[in-house]
C-alpha cells in the first residue's frame, strides 16, 4: 500500500473515566472518501477530534502522511457539527469562507486581496456568491453548510474531516456538497465524514468505518455496511440501553 494519508494506531479516548473510543486502528489512503457510521454515542465525533488531537488520547497514535498531527495541522480542514457553531456571530458568508485562508497566513498576518479572491472563488463553487454579504445565521441550513464547505475549500487542505454535514440540509445542497466532495476526492484529497443516513452511505462513499466504541469493520463500503454487520453495531447499543 502507498503511504496512507491517515493512520490511526490503537487509539483510545475517554471522558472523565468513561471510555468513548477503545483501541481503534485503521488507515485511509489518499483519494478515498470514508463514512464513519455507528449508533448514537458510538464515539464518531470523538474519533474525529481524536484524529485532530483536539482531545488528548489515553493511548494510541495518529500520523498524517507519516508525520505527527501537530506538524501538518494546516493541511487538515475540519467542518464542525451544526450545534458547535454560534450562528448569531457577527460574520457574513464571505468572511466565513475567508477563515479558511487563515491557517496558511499564520499568526499576525492579515488576509489581503489574494485571500479575498480565494474566498470569493470558493463561495462561487458552492453556489453561494449571491449571499456573500448575508450574516451566517440568516441563511438556511443547507446554505450554511455550503459556506462551511467553501471555508474548507479555501483552506486547500489534503485532508478534510466533516462532522455530520448533511444534518438539516435540503436535498439540493446535499447533492451539491456530495458532488464537490467527490471532485476533491478524485483530485487526491482524503475525506472522512461522520454520516448518519445508512441509506445514502453506500452511494456517497467508497469506504466505510463501522464504529461502536470499538472498530467493528473498516473497508470498501459494500463490504462494511452489510445487514449483518449493521445489526451487530446497532444491536449492541440497544442491549446496552436495556
Amino acid at each position: 500500500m502507498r503511504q496512507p494519508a491517515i493512520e490511526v494506531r490503537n487509539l483510545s479516548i475517554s471522558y472523565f473515566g468513561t471510555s468513548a473510543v477503545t483501541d481503534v486502528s485503521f488507515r485511509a489512503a489518499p483519494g478515498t472518501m470514508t463514512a464513519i457510521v455507528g449508533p448514537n454515542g458510538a464515539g464518531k465525533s470523538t474519533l474525529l477530534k481524536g484524529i485532530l488531537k483536539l482531545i488528548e488520547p489515553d493511548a494510541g497514535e495518529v500520523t498524517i502522511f507519516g508525520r505527527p498531527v501537530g506538524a501538518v495541522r494546516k493541511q487538515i480542514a475540519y467542518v464542525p457539527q451544526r450545534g458547535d457553531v454560534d450562528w448569531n456571530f457577527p460574520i457574513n458568508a464571505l468572511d466565513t469562507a475567508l477563515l479558511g485562508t487563515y491557517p496558511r497566513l499564520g499568526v499576525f498576518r492579515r488576509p489581503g486581496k489574494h485571500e479575498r479572491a480565494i474566498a470569493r472563488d470558493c463561495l462561487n463553487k458552492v453556489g453561494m456568491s449571491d449571499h456573500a454579504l448575508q450574516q451566517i445565521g440568516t441563511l438556511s441550513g443547507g446554505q450554511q453548510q455550503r459556506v462551511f464547505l467553501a471555508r474548507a475549500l479555501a483552506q486547500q487542505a489534503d485532508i478534510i474531516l466533516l462532522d455530520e454535514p448533511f444534518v438539516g440540509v435540503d436535498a439540493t445542497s446535499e447533492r451539491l456538497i456530495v458532488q464537490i466532495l467527490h471532485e476533491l476526492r478524485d483530485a487526491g484529497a482524503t475525506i472522512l465524514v461522520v454520516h448518519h443516513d445508512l441509506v445514502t452511505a453506500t452511494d456517497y462513499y467508497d469506504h466505510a468505518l463501522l464504529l461502536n466504541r470499538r472498530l467493528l469493520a473498516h473497508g470498501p463500503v459494500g463490504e462494511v455496511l452489510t445487514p449483518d454487520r449493521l445489526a451487530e453495531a446497532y444491536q449492541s447499543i440497544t442491549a446496552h440501553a436495556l
Partner: protein
Amino acid sequence: MEFLEALVEYDYLKKALVTAVVVGILCGVIGSFTILRGLALMGDAISHAVLPGIAASFLLGISFFPGALVAGLLTALGIGYVNQNSRLKNDAVIGIVFTAMFALGVVMVSLSPTSTDLTKILFGNVLAVRTSDMWITVIVGALVLLVAAALYKELQVSSFDPTMAAAYGLSTKGLHYLLMTMLTLVTVASLQTVGIILVVAMLIVPASTAYLLTDSLPRMILLAAALGVLSSAGGLYFSFSYNLPSGAAIVLVGAAGFLVAFLFAPTHGVIRRQLSARRARVLAMG
C-alpha cells in the same frame, strides 16, 4: 455650556475626560470579544478579583499594577483549574472563586494601617484622576489595543469557531488567558473612572448595544468603542453638572443607550422583531 467652559478652565476636568474617553474605547473593544465568547460573567469575576492585589500593593507600598495583574490572572487560572477538576458548572465555579478573592480583598483593606479608601477603589472617581493615573490609563490602553489589533484575526476565528481554530493549530487556551490578561489590564485602567464594581458594565453594555445594531464584527467593535466614549463623556458631564458619582453616571448613560437599541434597533430590536413576527403571522393566515 457650563461644562464646556469648565473643561477649558479646569485641568482636572481635562484629565478626567481623557481618561474616561480612553476607558470608553478600551472597554468597547475588549468588551466586544468578551461578550461574543460568552465571558461576561468572567469579566465581572476578574474585575472584582483584582481587589486583593490592589490591597496587597497598598500594604507593600508599591504601585497597584503588578498586584492587580497577579490577582486577576490567579483568578482566571483558579477558575480554569476548578472547572476542569470538579463536576460543578462553570458559573458556580466563577461565583465561588471571585467572591472569595473579593472577600479576601475586603479583609486585607480593613487590615491596612494606612487609610485606604475602599469606596474609591470600588466605585472610582474620575474627577479625582491624577496626572499619573491618566498616563497609566493611556499607556495600558494603547498596549491592550495594540495587542488586540495584532491578534484580531486570531481572536475572531477562536471566538466564532474555537474547534476550527484549535484544529489548525491555534492555542485557544493561550488566547483565552491572553484575553483574561487584557480584562485584568482594562480593569486596572478603569479603576479611577468607574471602579471595579462597575467596570463590567463598561465591558458589557456598549458592546451589547453594538451587537444589536450590526452584523459585522469590525463595525461592532468600532461602534462599541464609540458608544463607550459617549457613555464616558456623557456620564462625566452629568457627574460634573449634577454632582453625581462618576462611575454610576457613566454606567447609567450606557444603559440608557442599550435600552434605546433594545427597543428600536433596525433588525434586532424588540419592536422590529414583533412587527416582523406579526407580518409573518398575517402572511401565514393568508
